[in-house]
């Protein structure tokens, strides 16, 4: 992962034919309507029980994607094919439980349902806040992020999340893209209102406002590039296109960067803050990216290699 390999480019356009409805769309339809309404009144143990029951069906349905993911996991995490297959299965399962947890977060009493078993390295966060220039919580797309963010907000440490409103998903059909995706975004916004989307023209200014107020901003660096400027980089052994915005935010606003890792489910999760990343200063965007990209990426790569089953590799492999 050499910094010199990084280049900022515009993304290519996609012209692939997309089917009207896919299986993925039907699962989302099921989730957004009947399951969502069940989630309002069913106790967590029952909701999780339904999740466990449907897990074998999901595992069977996505067996081909799982097999493809396993090959990549084995290579990226330097593990055996057998272990990689188990990780792929666990990741799929955790992704489903993450969706169920999102329904629990819609409840007015959700804060009481969040069971945080440990917060490690809080002193690193305090130290970063003491700098007075805002803090970016740097991480990857881990399943426990939404519950951890909600918990932190309930503890008075609200963090502004920056999300992609329209993430690439080859399994989604035209119906899913036009009808279900906007509703999924609405649901996500209800579960955690403290978020902005990279597609909003105001998003960078919202981030600036939060950091200027010495607040927290939660950034997942491993998101695939969209319509914005992206950096092409090898990440976990494969070519990756990420948005370059985070580097510009850190360069211009001189905020602290604290690697953050959230693991588990709503009935037992933990949060870890690591020491602040040393940031090399540079006048230009390109120099800054070259100087800091390896450190930013390697910290998230390490998180993923340590806990691949907790990472949302599902739509990314």
């Amino acid at each position, binding site marked *: 992962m050499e910094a010199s390999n990084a280049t900022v480019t515009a993304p290519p356009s996609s012209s692939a034919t997309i089917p009207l409805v896919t299986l993925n769309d039907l699962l989302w339809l099921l989730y957004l309507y009947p399951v969502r309404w069940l989630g309002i009144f069913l106790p967590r143990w029952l909701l999780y029980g339904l999740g466990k029951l449907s897990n074998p069906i999901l595992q069977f349905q996505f067996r081909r994607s799982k097999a493809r993911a396993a090959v990549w996991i084995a290579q990226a995490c330097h593990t055996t094919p057998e272990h990689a297959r188990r990780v792929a299965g666990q990741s799929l399962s955790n992704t489903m439980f993450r969706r169920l947890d999102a329904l629990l977060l819609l409840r007015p009493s959700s804060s009481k349902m969040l069971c945080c078993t440990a917060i490690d390295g809080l002193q690193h966060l305090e130290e970063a806040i003491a700098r007075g220039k805002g803090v970016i919580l740097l991480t990857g797309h881990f399943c426990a992020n939404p519950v951890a963010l909600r918990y932190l907000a309930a503890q008075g440490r609200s963090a502004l999340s920056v999300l992609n409103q329209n993430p690439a998903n080859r399994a989604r059909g035209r119906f899913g893209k036009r009808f279900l995706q906007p509703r999924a975004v609405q649901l996500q916004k209800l579960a955690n209102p403290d978020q902005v989307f990279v597609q909003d*023209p105001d998003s960078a200014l919202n981030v600036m406002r939060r950091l200027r107020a010495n607040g927290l901003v939660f950034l997942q660096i491993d998101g695939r590039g969209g319509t914005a*400027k992206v950096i092409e980089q090898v990440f976990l052994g494969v070519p990756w296109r990420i948005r370059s915005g985070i580097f510009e935010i850190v360069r211009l*606003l001189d905020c602290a960067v604290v690697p953050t890792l959230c693991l588990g489910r709503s009935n037992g999760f933990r949060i870890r803050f690591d020491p602040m990343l040393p940031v090399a200063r540079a006048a230009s965007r390109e120099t800054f990216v070259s100087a800091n990209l390896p450190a930013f990426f390697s910290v998230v790569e390490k998180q993923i290699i340590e806990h691949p089953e907790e990472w949302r590799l599902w739509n990314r492999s």
Partner: protein
Amino acid sequence: MEQLLTNSGFRPRETVDRIRRVFIDSLHLNLREEDLHYEDKLDESVGLDSVAVLDFVTALEKEFQITFEPEMLTIDLVRDLKELTAYVDERVARSVPDGRQ
């Protein structure tokens, strides 16, 4: 009014020109000031990369030695060149007595 402003050291015309210059420089646009359609170009740049507006605002702060108030960090203000000019002038005027915000 303009005469009064000029006499007191504030030149709205100059402010607009400087803002347009900062805009071109900070976004690395390859065009002349007279060819700049500010709002169209801003929308185009922000549409491609929302962080572009951050480059522009921080460059404005550096150029005019001001700090934007948090509540004024909105795309609506930045998009409206007339309002932006008035705001920058106001911030510069406020910073004059003690030399800083």
